């Protein structure tokens, strides 16, 4: 490491370090979900038929729609970073805004999906669910816990991007220093990639 780099770190500006820290944090998030993916695979192995039946009850169309929304939001997030690199501040803010709107759209869909399930009496501890096969109870347990925790991450992401919008408009994030926006973007892609795994596991494999 050259001495220049070192002194640069001392005005608390070390973009490579900041990115490294963010990646480490993303590892922890992946492993957090990894624990649940382990549970999913073990229970899928244990109750293949019940998982098959239960998965049929999920609405593939809403799921597909939500996947499209989330993938698009990852695109707009990436575009906002490119925009700031090209000194187009307003455009960057616009794309960040768009990301938030798409994220909200995802959450609204999720809300309708969950409430529909509640109406059918499928929620942890409900009589209808408890009357079902234990494999189905586990399937819906995993469904609620995993998509719920994912939804929580979407909300955290929205808050994070909102903060980034403020920082961008104040000029703290600019074409010279955009590592914060990049880190928020990385977080958002993580939220996306976890959904990419949740979607087939719950909706597509029946």
């Amino acid at each position, binding site marked *: *490491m*050259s*001495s220049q780099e*070192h*002194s640069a*770190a*001392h005005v*608390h500006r*070390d973009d*490579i*370090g900041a990115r*490294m*820290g963010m990646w*480490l*944090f993303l*590892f*922890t*998030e992946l*492993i*957090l*979900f*990894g*624990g*649940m993916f*382990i*549970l999913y695979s*073990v*229970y899928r192995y*244990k*109750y293949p038929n019940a998982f098959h039946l239960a998965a049929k009850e999920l609405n593939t169309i809403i799921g597909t729609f939500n996947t499209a929304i989330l993938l698009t939001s990852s695109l707009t997030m990436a575009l906002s970073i490119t925009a700031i690199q090209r000194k187009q501040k307003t455009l960057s803010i616009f794309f960040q805004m768009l990301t938030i709107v798409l994220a909200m759209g995802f959450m609204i869909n999720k809300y309708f999906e969950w409430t529909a399930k509640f109406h059918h009496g499928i929620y*942890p*501890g409900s009589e209808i669910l*408890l009357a079902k*096969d*234990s*494999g189905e*109870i*586990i399937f819906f*347990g*995993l469904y*609620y*816990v995993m998509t719920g*925790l994912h939804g929580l991450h979407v909300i955290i992401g929205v808050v994070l991007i909102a903060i980034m919008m403020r920082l961008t408009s104040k000029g703290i994030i600019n074409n010279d220093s955009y590592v914060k926006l990049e880190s928020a973007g990385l977080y958002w892609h993580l939220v996306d990639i976890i959904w990419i795994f949740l979607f087939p596991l719950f909706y597509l494999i029946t």
Partner: protein
Amino acid sequence: MSEAITVPQNGKQPSYLEYQGKHKGLLGWILSTDHKRIGILYFIAIMSFFLVGATFGFLMRLELIAPGKTIIDAQTYNSFFTLHGVVMIFLFIIPGIPAIFGNFFLPILIGAKDVSFPRLNLLSWYLYIIGGALAIISILLPGGPIDTGWTFYIPYSIRTNTNVIPALFAAFVLGFSSILTGLNFVTTVHRLRAPGMDWFKMPLSVWSLYSTAWVQVLATPIIGITLLLVIIERTFGVGLFDPALGGDPVLFQHLFWIYSHPAVYIMILPAMGVVSEIIPVFARRTIFGYKFIAMSSVAIALFGSLVWAHHMFTAGMSNTGQFIFSLLTMVVSIPSAIKVFNWTATLYKGSIELATPMLFVLAFIFQFSIGGLTGVMQGILSVDIMIHDTSFIVAHFHYVMFGGTGFGLFAAMHYWFPKMFGKMYNEKISKTAFWFLFVGFNTLYFPMFIMGWLGMPRRYFDYLPEFQTYHVISTVGSWILITGVLLMFGNLYVALRKGKKITERNIWGGETLEWQIETPPIHENFIDIPVVNSTPYQYLQNDEVTINNQEVK
């Protein structure tokens, strides 16, 4: 005012203890992002929790002095061993060395002015305090303190009516604190090493803190999600671990140990780093097998992540699974043994000075070897079936965790105390305290090996009269041990108040960077960032003497 102080006086910069930033007094401490001040904040908090945990342990031992009820009833006893475990593990020994001495010395040892993310560092202290507060709240709330054992095994943790949720949430928050510290250290070691300090010129404690930090980052999230799932289970009855609803409690055990076994290495690795740091200084010899010690830290971190199921040999597992985990368990003992051999080889023909830190280190090697070898015994399947859940296990992990990590922490404390505070403690008293601790420790825990072998179950409130002799010896040991603890802390407290002031930079004759800076260190450690050209622990003059002597012979 503050400017007047920060300006160098007589060519001397104020130490970090006198330095004044934006805030004064207490705020200057609890809002400081200086890694050294955060280290001291951790020091105070962690040692306070150690005393809390020790009190629970002391009372448990007192209860066990005679069969039947002695001072507390069975339910209270269950809570005490749970709280002893939770406090000692999550609040004392996991953060212990990395949070106190890692924070204080890691940046100095690699020639940096601070860690990579100073504000994150302060945040992790706050998370630690919040976690500690939650743990205390779980004791005080109506419903009674948690009684599941620190492993929170299901179905106990779902069925009991005690305050499980606050205690689990405390461990969850403490996990976050641990992750952030780990993340900070990994980045710091990668990014902030002084010019010239390549990987194999780093002091060995940096290697072990670095390996530990990776385990903290990669293993802790698993316990996070597991505890969260138990909280969800208790709140909503989802059924993921509940056999009545189709869940599998053994899966909880797997997830729990996937973190908690690597956590054992989070606890021991930093202590091994401390030992590698202290031995060359007090043996006046270049460390033997630097690269082997450094790499064995990485190997321990790696293999240690693959042995978790050896905690569950009796919980139902395929023969193949048992075979693989038994084999891996034996494999993981190899890098630890490499370290022990290298340390003893460093001592060989050294000029050994039995100062207090060195005494603790020698005790570490002795006790860690006993703890480690009995660990290999437990890796043998047939033996494990017999001694599973007996006090043999309790003795084993106390030999490793307390006899190892605890003594390593005390060694670090006596080694770096003068550098941290610019005060010297009374060496006579600290050595006396050491002997109390050493004798007390072995009297307390060694009988547990014997009675465990004879069949005394762990975590039992009552026992058969034939075990009483061992229990009495053990309880007497706890009295000796607690005397040593109080004497040691008393001595350090007196040293802080009216100990001999020292400004000498290098009181022990160490060769690492912390001994080249002011005592106590200045605000940003170094006026000029040092350039590092050689490996640490160069005691060539002694090596030459040794070689000459051999030639004469």
